[in-house]
């Protein structure tokens, strides 16, 4: 990065954060701190919901997913439109009618205090972990590639998010997310077009799709029923439905975003905006990864994209073997490139039989090169057992630094940091709100003034920010980063969703039954996670189903509940 890149980065990041603090200064009430001004339009809600979900991991890791595995990951989001419709029809009107500050307050209203606390505790546990990953994930990649110090990267980005979230609360989160997501869109779209323009002249976008399709990178829908496959249409629609229903419907970081809407209409339209845009957005980011894949068929790729780890491994006793594999890989990539050029040339002449043979030759050459790359990864793991053999998260940033002009490099690094801040701030806002409303105000101090709770909310927001920074400083992860986030979520989300579904739809079940059912279900999901090798998306379904069924069985054993569920509406 040169001076221009740094100027773009610092002016954009600090400018948006500063504007967030300035634009929401002078907040005096807890309600405003938790929900914003209450005048938020549907477009701001829509962008805010989108920015909360799309963290830096989305923009760093998803292109790497596209590069490695093609478009299949898009199926992870197939359940989202249906989930958002259900939330819009069922969840949202009830949240607004009960005038709740957090989603877990609804559990207290419907069931009892202990069930509310359990819901809040599960949220704080999984979101607290998630907040650490959110800040760690981009920091580890950026520090490795840019040569920045990891600890300073984590602390710097964490403190900026803490500053404006503590200062302006929900309103500052909404305000800054609006501009952050605009910067993100501009950066990603620009990167896409620059990438396509860098493909060889006779290849073009259509030729790139032909190459990607021929090498099995465009298979975005898999209708097979194999539960062992991580992404299929069915796991996406069903597992993804439960994951999205739980995330958008019961995770306070999202609930807080759409409860800030000026009316039910604004909140609903904000959600529907995401229901329509989520799949195309993820498709676009994955397609960027697929275009990166095609680009690196014509431009020699490194055998391992995390070059820092690779260079460290070269310095070990296995260095000779690794360098030999790198030379072999380089030669095989050159053969693949020649085969692809021949295949495309024959395809242009409409000679299908010869073109098919050339394509088969290109596929075989590519397969050979991938076998060598896999062998190199294994050798790297053997040479450095603590190093990660997954380099997908480094693909996009390697391209940015190696092939984009200055200014645009700064803009793309800004994209990653803006996305870090936007999701981080929403998480801190939610963690602080839940701790204040569901724990502190509910258990510790019930009769304090509004100013006292506002101060407490700011304190807890800062506290969670510091906890996330500490977690990130000591984190160590092996999974592809975006999958790590989804896996952690899937382990906890199903059970929380089960509690909410019982609350909404099974009104004959009381708090005691659902409380114990949720604890048993969560324990069982954790056991399944470590013992049954199935796609993590299914844990959302399993956890939810277990919680609902066990709640029903327990309630049948306990007999009918002896009172009508509370339907308290707070004073306005």
């Amino acid at each position, binding site marked *: 990065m040169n001076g221009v890149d740094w100027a773009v980065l610092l002016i954009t990041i600090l400018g948006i954060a500063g504007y967030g603090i300035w634009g929401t200064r002078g907040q005096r009430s807890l309600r405003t701190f938790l929900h914003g001004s209450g005048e938020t339009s549907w477009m701001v809600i829509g962008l805010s919901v989108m920015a909360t979900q799309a963290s830096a991991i989305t923009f760093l890791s998803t292109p790497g997913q596209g590069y490695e595995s093609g478009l299949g990951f898009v199926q992870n989001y197939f359940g989202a*439109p249906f989930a958002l*419709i259900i939330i*819009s029809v069922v969840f949202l009107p009830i949240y607004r009618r009960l005038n709740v500050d957090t989603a877990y307050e609804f559990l207290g209203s419907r069931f009892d205090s202990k069930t509310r606390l359990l819901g809040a505790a599960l949220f704080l546990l999984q979101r607290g972990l998630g907040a650490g990953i959110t800040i760690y994930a981009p920091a580890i990649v950026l520090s490795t590639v840019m040569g920045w110090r990891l600890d300073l990267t984590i602390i710097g980005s964490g403190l900026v998010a803490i500053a404006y979230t503590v200062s302006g609360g929900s309103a500052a989160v909404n305000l800054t997310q609006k501009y952050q997501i605009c910067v993100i869109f501009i950066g990603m779209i620009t990167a896409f077009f620059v990438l396509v323009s860098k493909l060889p002249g006779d290849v073009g976008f259509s030729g790139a799709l032909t190459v990607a399709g*021929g090498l099995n990178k465009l298979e*975005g829908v898999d209708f097979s029923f194999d539960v062992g496959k991580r992404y299929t249409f069915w796991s996406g629609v069903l597992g993804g439905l439960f994951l999205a229903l739980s995330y958008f419907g019961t995770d306070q970081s999202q609930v807080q975003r759409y409860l800030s809407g000026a009316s*039910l*209409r604004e909140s609903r339209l904000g959600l529907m905006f995401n*229901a*329509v845009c989520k799949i195309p957005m993820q498709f676009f980011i994955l397609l960027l990864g697929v275009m990166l894949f095609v680009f690196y068929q014509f431009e020699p790729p490194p055998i391992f994209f995390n070059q820092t780890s690779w260079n460290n491994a070269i310095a070990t006793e296995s260095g000779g073997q690794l360098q030999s594999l790198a030379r072999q890989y380089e030669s095989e990539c050159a053969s693949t490139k020649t085969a692809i050029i021949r295949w495309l040339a024959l395809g242009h002449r409409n000679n299908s039989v010869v073109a098919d043979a050339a394509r088969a030759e290109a596929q075989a050459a590519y397969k050979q090169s991938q076998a060598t790359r896999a062998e190199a990864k294994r050798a790297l793991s053997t040479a450095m057992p603590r190093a990660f053999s997954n380099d997908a998260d480094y693909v996009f940033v390697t391209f940015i630094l190696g092939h984009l002009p200055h200014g645009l490099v700064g803009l793309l690094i800004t994209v990653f940091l803006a996305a870090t801040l936007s999701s981080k701030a929403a998480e801190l806002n939610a963690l602080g709100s839940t701790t204040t409303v569901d724990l502190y105000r509910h258990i510790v101090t019930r009769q304090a003034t509004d100013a006292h709770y506002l101060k407490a909310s700011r304190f807890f927001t800062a506290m969670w920010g510091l906890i996330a920074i500490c977690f990130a400083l000591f984190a160590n992860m092996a999974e592809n980063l975006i999958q790590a986030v989804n896996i952690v979520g899937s382990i906890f989300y199903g059970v929380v969703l089960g509690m909410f579904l019982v609350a909404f739809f099974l009104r004959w079940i009381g708090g005691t039954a659902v409380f114990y059912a949720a604890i048993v279900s969560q324990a069982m999901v954790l056991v399944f996670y470590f013992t049954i090798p199935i796609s993590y998306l299914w844990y959302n379904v399993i956890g939810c189903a277990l919680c609902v069924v066990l709640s029903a069985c327990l309630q049948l054993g306990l007999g009918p509940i002896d009172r009508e569920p509370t339907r308290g509406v707070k004073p306005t």
Partner: protein
Amino acid sequence: MAERVTDSENKATRLPVFRTWPAVYAFVVATFVLWVTLLAILARTFS
């Protein structure tokens, strides 16, 4: 800020084309079907 959900707000979207919420939801589902179809066509065309 808190509100009672009125019938009129539940029914009217105040959008030019999709005047009721079921119409909005139908549009969302139709968009989903369109995306899945386009993805399948994309894979088939270039495979």
